[in-house]
């Protein structure tokens, strides 16, 4: 039976799918499970599983298959070890567009940034996940809600809480 060009088993379709989804999945898994390198391994594992099941997973369903698979992989990893959210070397300040920021920001001391990153790392898992998806990956509340199958309202609540938590943690520096 000839493969349709839209089959997940089609190499080009698979590659395109990988290119448009792997980066986001990596961020998601990192925010959720706290280790970027581990997240990259999980991305690979999930995509290999997708490939092995390509005949059974139509391309329209591939994204949800991918996130479910990856999340399951992450959960089974996490069962064996408690990972503290790691931000050193993983989250950094963009170099290129700091000059576009407000003058106040240019003045921001390194100390503040460190404090901010530590505060983010200390957030409850769900709050951190939502906060980073929104602020770093620029996802809308709707998109974030779709990723974890909850309502937009739930995301908005988590987002508000995350900001309040961060504010408390950072203090008046």
């Amino acid at each position: 039976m000839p493969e349709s060009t839209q089959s997940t088993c089609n190499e080009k379709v698979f590659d395109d799918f990988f290119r448009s989804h792997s980066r986001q999945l990596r961020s998601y898994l990192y925010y959720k499970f706290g280790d970027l390198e581990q997240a990259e391994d999980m991305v690979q594992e999930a995509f290999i599983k997708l490939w092995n099941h390509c005949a059974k997973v139509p391309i329209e369903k591939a994204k949800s298959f991918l996130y479910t698979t990856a999340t399951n992989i992450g959960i089974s990893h996490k069962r064996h070890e408690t990972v503290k959210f790691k931000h050193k070397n993983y989250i950094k300040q963009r170099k290129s567009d700091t000059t576009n920021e407000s003058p106040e920001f240019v003045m921001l001391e390194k100390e503040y940034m460190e404090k901010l990153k530590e505060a983010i790392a200390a957030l409850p898992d769900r709050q951190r996940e939502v906060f980073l998806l929104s602020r770093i990956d620029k996802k809308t509340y709707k998109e974030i809600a779709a990723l974890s199958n909850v309502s937009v309202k739930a995301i908005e609540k988590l987002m508000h809480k995350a900001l309040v938590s961060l504010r408390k943690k950072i203090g008046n520096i």
Partner: protein
Amino acid sequence: MLDDREENIFLSRWLNNELTDEELADFKADPEYKHYQKLVTATDTLELTSYNMDTALHTIKSSKKTVAKSPKVIKLWSFAAIAASIAILIGVFMWHPQENFTTVVGQQMAVKLPDGSEMMLNATSTASFDKKDWENNRTVTLEGEAYFKVKKGSTFTVVTPQGEVRVLGTQFTVQAYPTLFEAICYEGKVQVSNRNQQTILTAGNAYRNINDQIIEQWDVLDTTPSWIHQASTFRSIPVQYVFDTLEKQYHITIDAKQLDSDLRYTGTFPNNALDIALKTVCSTLGMQYTISADGKTVVVEKQ
């Protein structure tokens, strides 16, 4: 508005620009506002370390390969492999570096061939061969004269414009000049192809074709060509070749206008003593010679 009560989504709405003008004005008046503003501005400069997507895809592909699920994948890889092989083959066939050796007047040159066979070039000769392909194709292209000591192995061929000598055994000489083609076998067996005619020479056999008309075959007693030992030996050869040889060995011009072209010469002369050589040749032929003042021209006349 900034508490963390369960139902509060004020800050989410602020980030989404969903506050009413009134709400926003109130918020801006709050001393907390600048702290939140700073927090969000600072967060927005953060990014993750870069992701090498190509490396990741490559890793996935390599593990896909071991799974070998889809015939389509295999097909693509094999196409790539075939394309690469073709490219390499074309490269191999297109790129044949030729080793070239040329001797000038009075010079001899010993050349070791890639398999250890030896080639000794006599004066004013050119030989070339393909070093890279030598293992598969032991072929030397020759113009002039050379002596070969061939190691055992695949067929060894000497190609000349006048004909081909194919080695079935070991030691032989080939002389290939526009009107003279001569081969002498000193050891083993050689096969001579000349004008669609094939002759097998065994040790001590000689073969000659002059002007593409007269084919001669005779026997020799020597075990190596005389020129290896600094001498030139001829057997019943048109005298013109003798003078040609003298010219090649001594870098002279011989002026022998009144020469009878049917005259033949048999004998040996040294390649390192011009006077003796000229004396030897001329006395046998009943002629006399004069060397010019600069030593470059020799006039030969009947006595």
